[in-house]
């Protein structure tokens, strides 16, 4: 019995366990999503979290212990953001022809994303630190954390709200755009990239490469714009 206990105390605190669990959970979630034909609701991030969170909860493992291992994957968000240069480069011709739609849609999407989150959070009577934590929800995780911290939110809560936003955007974009009969992949991709950052971008790449490239542009530009406008919106609206 003590051997089992000792083995478990090694496993539960070893970064290797949680790194492995994260990769395996994702592989299982991705395989399942593919087998189902990548329907909007079978989101790989959501399914992976649903596989891992109960294990941590059931074994009483703290998030900090889990993150010791998972940080190696989390770290890849940075190089992955840089890698978005490639789809942008591949689509440089079409992008050059839609500079004006891109810039204006960016401002509209970014301001509505942050502004509506702040106003809705106020309308629900949430405490100020929650309002500040939800404001940068539509921008990519590392940027949102920095903004949240700068304006006085709770960065760890912002991380979760960012991921939830990404999942919500990735799940709703296809039905929403089909409902509106929007067939322009550039517009569809751009919208989900502005509203739902990398998870929306991953969804867009699943559906169409042009949509993916435009989602990537929207996500990168929105990382810039959100870090400029959230501090201003917070001063006005909170």
């Amino acid at each position: 019995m003590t051997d089992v206990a000792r083995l478990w105390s090694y496993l539960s605190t070893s970064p290797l366990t949680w790194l492995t669990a994260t990769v395996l959970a994702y592989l299982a979630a991705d395989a399942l999503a593919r087998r189902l034909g990548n329907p909007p609701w079978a989101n790989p991030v959501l399914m992976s979290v649903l596989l891992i969170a109960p294990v941590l909860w059931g074994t009483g493992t703290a998030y900090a212990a889990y993150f010791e291992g998972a940080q190696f994957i989390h770290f890849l968000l940075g190089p992955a953001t840089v890698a978005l240069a490639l789809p942008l480069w591949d689509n440089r011709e079409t992008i050059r022809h839609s500079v004006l739609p891109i810039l204006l849609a960016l401002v509209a999407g970014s301001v509505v994303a942050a502004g509506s989150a702040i106003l809705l959070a106020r309308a629900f009577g949430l405490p100020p630190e929650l309002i500040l934590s939800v404001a940068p929800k539509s921008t990519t995780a590392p940027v949102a954390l920095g903004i949240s911290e700068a304006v006085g939110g709770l960065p760890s809560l912002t991380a979760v709200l960012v991921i939830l936003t990404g999942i919500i955007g990735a799940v709703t974009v296809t039905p929403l755009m089909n409902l509106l009969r929007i067939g322009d992949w550039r517009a569809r991709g751009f919208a989900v990239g502005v509203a739902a950052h990398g998870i929306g971008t991953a969804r867009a790449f699943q559906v169409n490469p042009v949509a993916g490239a435009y989602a990537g542009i929207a996500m990168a530009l929105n990382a810039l714009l959100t870090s400029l406008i959230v501090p201003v919106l917070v001063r006005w609206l909170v």
Partner: protein
Amino acid sequence: MVRAAGSRQNGGDTNRKGVTAMLATFGLLLSCQLIGEVAARGLALPVPGPVLGLALLLLLLRLSPPLAERLRPTTGVILANLSLMFVPAGVGVIGNLEVLSKDWLALLIILTVSTLLAMLAAVGTFILVRRLTERGAGA
């Protein structure tokens, strides 16, 4: 100097060349990010380091277009599995159960409504401006 990270194309079997190209690509991505982080911090820019890194890589591709073909196999794998990289932050939900359990319904409604509004604003603006500018260009 960053381009020195490009792989050597001569010698070795195909597999080994593939691995070297993968590492070279990864080295280049990390170098771009590092330079981006240093620039963002050093110049106190409000722009995140990886986004500056993205801009730097675009500049490198512009200076040397053949670079794209060497990077593509590795960046393709990374971007095809972008979802994986959000899992650790997503699991953070268990570290915030206390806050979330109290206001989860309000937060869920806020996130859903706000995300839908943002997508509508962006897609509407994009299509409207595209129609106006394309009509202007065609006239």
